[in-house]
């Protein structure tokens, strides 16, 4: 990773990657959502209601992945003081918050027909809502911190690290507590409780959304680097 800490080298790599991730991810996402939600089978119990899963589940994973990205980048920023680490952490925040909000919204829409309620304060739903609020707090804090000159972004990095304790809570909420939300369907060790005809489009959609997420983060990082460069040049011109 140290080799990419150089912004110039990062940019030469990020420019083509943005394009690839964006197009491949976007096409894969749209293709797999159509494959699963339009062409795929209905569920034995829920019928057509299950089709919202192809949006809801990738959104939930990426909402959590976004904060994982913030936490890892924040740790790298605090430990090695990489100039790019803080930029990367801040770039994850808004797209992560959007995916968390999308997860909450689609979950609510799914909950009404499947469970009979838009919202319940069970462990999974509540911890996911907390994640969304953490994103809002992080966005506000990092924006306020980067207003001042000479800020090193340490406070938002600490906040990003501390907020990561919510991730295992979200993951294990359905195991630890009685919840209305069902237990996990897919685990790395235990395999899947989703039939293959639904699992493959779901995994494809999740991969596509992840690539798209990567493209958005690269774009946001490039935008912040460009802004820093512009500000530095403006300062130099003002000094002359």
């Amino acid at each position, binding site marked *: 990773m140290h080799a990419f800490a150089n912004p110039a080298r990062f940019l030469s790599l990020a420019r083509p990657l943005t394009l690839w991730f964006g197009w491949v991810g976007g096409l894969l996402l749209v293709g797999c959502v159509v494959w699963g939600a339009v062409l795929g*089978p*209905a*569920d*034995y*119990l*829920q019928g057509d209601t*299950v089709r919202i*899963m192809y949006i809801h589940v990738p959104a939930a994973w990426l909402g959590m992945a976004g904060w994982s990205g913030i936490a890892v980048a924040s*740790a790298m920023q*605090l*430990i*090695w*003081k990489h100039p790019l680490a803080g930029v990367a952490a801040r770039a994850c925040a808004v797209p992560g918050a959007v995916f968390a909000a999308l997860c909450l919204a689609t979950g609510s829409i799914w909950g009404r*027909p*499947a*469970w*009979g*309620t838009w919202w*319940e*304060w*069970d*462990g999974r739903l509540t911890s996911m809502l907390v994640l969304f609020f953490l994103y809002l707090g992080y966005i506000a804090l990092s924006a306020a911190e980067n207003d001042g000159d000479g800020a090193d972004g340490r406070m938002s990095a600490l906040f990003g*690290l*501390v907020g*990561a*304790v919510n991730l*295992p*809570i979200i993951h*294990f909420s359905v195991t*630890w*507590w*009685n*919840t*209305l939300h*069902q*237990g*996990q*369907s897919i685990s790395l060790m235990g395999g899947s*409780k*989703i*039939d293959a*005809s*639904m699992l493959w489009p779901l995994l494809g959609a999740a991969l596509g959304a992840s690539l798209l997420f990567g493209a958005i983060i690269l774009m946001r990082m490039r935008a912040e680097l460009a802004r820093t460069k512009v500000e530095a040049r403006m300062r130099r011109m003002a000094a002359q």
Partner: protein
Amino acid sequence: MKAKNQRLTLILVAVAAMIGAALLAMSALKDEAAYFYSPADLAAARPSADQALRLGGMVADKSIKREADGVTITFMVTDGKAQTPVRFKGIAPDLFKENSGVVAEGKLGADGVFVADNILAKHDERYMPPQMDGKMHKTGKVE
């Protein structure tokens, strides 16, 4: 020790301590954060008659009965260890079925019958096309 190794150690220790503290706090919340009581929990907890609570479990096989007024239903909720009879007047969600999960909101009456004023359906983590039903279905697990 170089400064960056010092920071690395410090942050690793801090993250480990934070996760440990969160896990301890969450395991202490185990009962308080539960969304519903199972019939066995209910038998152990003996709540008072005016306490609002939720009862969750599986709807027992062949236990749903409609009363003479046409809108009141009674059924048994089971968790494999204990059973609680429930009475509910109103419209149950579509996924409310026998051998399927349910969460009932209401109060436990003095006669041991749980009077529900709202019913939520709880489905499990398995998804499959209709023609697969029966191959993966019916483990009867409460989750």
